[in-house]
């Protein structure tokens, strides 16, 4: 490889001799590190019993390598008691960064561009009734929050379980809807930030 390095040096010399090449050929800078507010690696659904704040049920989904090919891991299912009312909130993080970045805060800041939609096994809840609003945005969901335009967000929702045992699924989908979100926009408008399906057991 002597020859090659010689060639390289020789031609660099030629470049200098011409004196037109203003940029250095040997800069060695790496790209600046970026913070990645886009990436979500961990989503936890937190069901808190309205009657007992210490009764908390959680279910999480983790994609440890973010955009990498590693499969999404659904950690546990949602197990709720019959005949109880829960408030559903979230912990949404990007844990590729250390310390992890709270994406939930960011969604709250941009709540006029986001909305959560749900689907669940028919009859799992007495309120809301039905099977959720992913298939039809006007179906009932008990949103506890609204953006400045008065449209629901869904970072807090209320759920009253049925009086009989149910086994099924529960899906939460966060849609990012910049300039798209209206009173009637639905679960297929805008782009998906997360779309997670858990097993649901009410007993």
């Amino acid at each position, binding site marked *: *490889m002597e020859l*090659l390095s010689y*060639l*390289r040096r020789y*031609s660099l010399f*030629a*470049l200098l001799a*011409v004196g*037109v*090449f*203003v*940029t*250095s*050929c*040997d*800069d*060695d*800078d*790496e*790209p*600046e*590190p*970026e*913070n*990645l*507010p*886009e*990436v*979500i*690696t961990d*989503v936890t659904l937190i069901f808190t019993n309205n009657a007992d704040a210490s009764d908390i049920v959680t279910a999480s*989904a983790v*994609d440890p*390598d*973010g*955009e*990498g*090919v*590693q*499969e*999404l891991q659904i950690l546990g299912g949602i197990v709720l008691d019959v005949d109880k009312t829960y408030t559903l909130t979230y912990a949404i993080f990007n844990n*590729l*960064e250390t310390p992890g970045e709270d994406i939930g805060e*960011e969604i709250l800041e*941009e709540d006029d*561009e986001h909305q959560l939609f749900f689907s669940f096994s028919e009859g799992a809840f007495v309120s809301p009734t039905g099977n959720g609003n992913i298939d039809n945005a006007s179906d009932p969901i008990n949103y506890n929050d609204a953006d400045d335009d008065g449209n629901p967000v869904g970072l807090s929702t209320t759920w009253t379980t049925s009086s009989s045992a149910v086994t099924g699924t529960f899906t939460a989908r966060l849609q*990012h809807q*910049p300039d798209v979100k209206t009173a009637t926009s639905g679960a*297929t408008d805008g*782009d*998906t*930030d*997360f*779309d*997670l399906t858990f097993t649901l057991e009410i007993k």
Partner: protein
Amino acid sequence: MKQVLFIFILLAVSASSKAQNQDDCNYELKGIILDVDTKEALPYVQILVKGTQNFLLTELDGSFHFKGLCDTSNVLVISCLGYCDTTCQSYHLNSDKPYIYLKEEINDLEEVTITAERTREEGTVSIAQQIIGKEALSANLTQTLASAIADVEGVTFTSVGNNVQLPVIHGLYGNRVLILNNGIKHGFQNWGSDHAPEIDVSSANRVTVLKGAAGVRYGPEALGGAIVIESDPLYLKEPFQAKVGTGYQTNGRGYFVNAEAGQGLENWSYHLGANYTRIGDKFAPDYSLTNTGKEEISVNGGFRYRWNKWNLKAYYSYLGQDLGLLRSSVVSSGTAIVRAINSDEPVIIRDFSYDINEPNQLVQHHFGKIEADWQYADDAKLTLRLGSQLNQRDEFDVRRNADLPIIDLDLITNDLQIDWEHPEWMQLNGLIGLEVFTQNNDNNPGTQTSPFIPNYNTFRFSTYVIESLKSNKSTFELGIRLDYEYNNVRGREPNQDVFRDEYRFMNFTSSLGYILNISDDHTFRTNLATAWRTPNMAELFSFGQHGFKTSFGLLRYYTDENENGALRTDRVTALGESDVVPEKGYKWINEWRTKKQSNTYTLTAYTNYIENFIFDRPIAVIGTIRGPMPVFIYDQADALFIGGDFSWQRQWSNVIDGTLGMSYLWSRNIRKNEALINQPPIMIDYHLGWKIPAFRGLTSSQLSIKPSYTFQQFQAPRTVSPEKLIDGLVIITPESEIFDFKDAPEGFFLLDVAWRIKSERFDAGLSIQNVLNTRYRNYLNEMRYFADEPGINFLFNINYLFNSKSS
């Protein structure tokens, strides 16, 4: 061969146009033969009207005057003082400026028909090639470079919407087709299918499409061919000339204005040009294609100074673009892909607007060149060329931080070329060259995403020799080239850890060509060339989502043997430790051209074998937080391309001519014995032109009709719908056969009509594209998954010409 002579011919053709009885031999042909540079008259040049006994010598002022010609179109054979025999087809009748510029090296040709042939660059003389002139280029200044040259048989374009179009030569595109702008390789983000060359059609005076591998002359990446763009030739002693033009198109309500001016004085000349284009959302027959507008501004200027045998040329151009991409093409989740692909109409349709929102691409390209040549003998020239380019690219995506670019790159490209056209030596004529090429790519911070492309520096040193030997009717051409390339790469992992790599390649390229001029009417060319290409940065290092694809470069994934060969992307492999090797191509191309009376046939047949061909293919559907996503990886295989282009030109009458064009390509991944994706389908078209004689002050008028049919791509990979993948009905592994998400679109018939008129100072055109408002999708357009192609379009344009003196 003692001398190279440059000639400049001015033909003033005057037929007794009032009495146009074609049976009478009463046509006349006048012209002047001048040196192309000095404009000095060349006396005693023998001119023969081909196929007749009619010949004469030019007068002392270089002029000649034929009388009693029987045909409206004549071929002149010009023998200049025994040094050259050249032929040019005279433009008869109504063309207002029958200037014919020839700057020929006599040894390169025996016969030139100006409509088809000109000087060929050393190293390419045996390669099938086709030229697109200024007139054809300026017929539609709203179009991209790629669509401007797509009329050439065997050439088409692959696109992402109507604004981002890349030329395809014989099935290859991107890094496998070299784009040479004013002698310098166009330095841009040449990866993926969504980065088109930032060259404004209005800045080009002439575009040559080389269909064979031209790697020896132009360097790596010319595996599949090359596109050579030249700006104004900057002739001396030309009167001041200026042109302003404007145009409007109904589809997209687009408009453009452009202006150019130039002048050649005793020892110096200049040419300036500027163009502005704006197009809004285009319309498919049934709906608006939301966010498909573009805005483009370009300026260019050339300057030449001549001092004795020295020529100094400087050229600068700038292009700024804002290109919209179809809004409905951005999908962030598996369910959205299913919906977008299965929907008959795009998922998002809004009212017409000129606004360009995300997704879009903002690009600025600065190009500067200085060239000095020293013609120290009649057949020897030394040329020094320096090029410097800055390409700034910002791409915006629909995402939470949509106001921040998701890709923000600055690419600086520098070129130094020295070539020496040596004097004849042992019957050999040739070119010896040295090139130094450097590129420096930097990510600008603030994208809030891991860089898709790393920072890198490329350094390449090349040297080549091309020699040709002419004996009797045969010309042999042999070329060899040595390239040494060094790359230094710095990137970021998704967790923002730094990775680095350094790698080198050295490669020989060679080319062997042969031309046989069987007779004046039959020519055979054959060229066998090798070429190579290093994998580009996207092929090696891409990671994650870009557009609607999530893809992983060759060095970004590996299979974990401890886990049953599962795919892993958690580390970057150094190139030296990987099994990634450069592509090597072997292209053999033959061209047979024959003329029988008023018919001209050109048949091109080729085969191209590419070892270690790099392509991307779907690999799996992976569960993500956003739902299941199809994932693509880059892979290497061996690919074989066999095809042919055919054209038949016939002069049906004095005023009507027709050209039939056909192209066919068979291609296959022969390592895995499966189809290749995104290969051009069979195409056939016919161009019928009718020259309408002068009337009402118009010097000429021409009507043309072009029907074309594009077949369905019958070699497309199998179809696996995304919902089948997501539902797990079809399992894809790294060993699975290649597939596509949607069937190749059906074949389609298009009809285009154009009418151009010319008068002394004005020329104007009306063209109607897709006259039948056909609903169709193009297999080579990535947007075929989401939307139809644009419908009918009326395009008007008008130019006004200023001359300091009429000639």
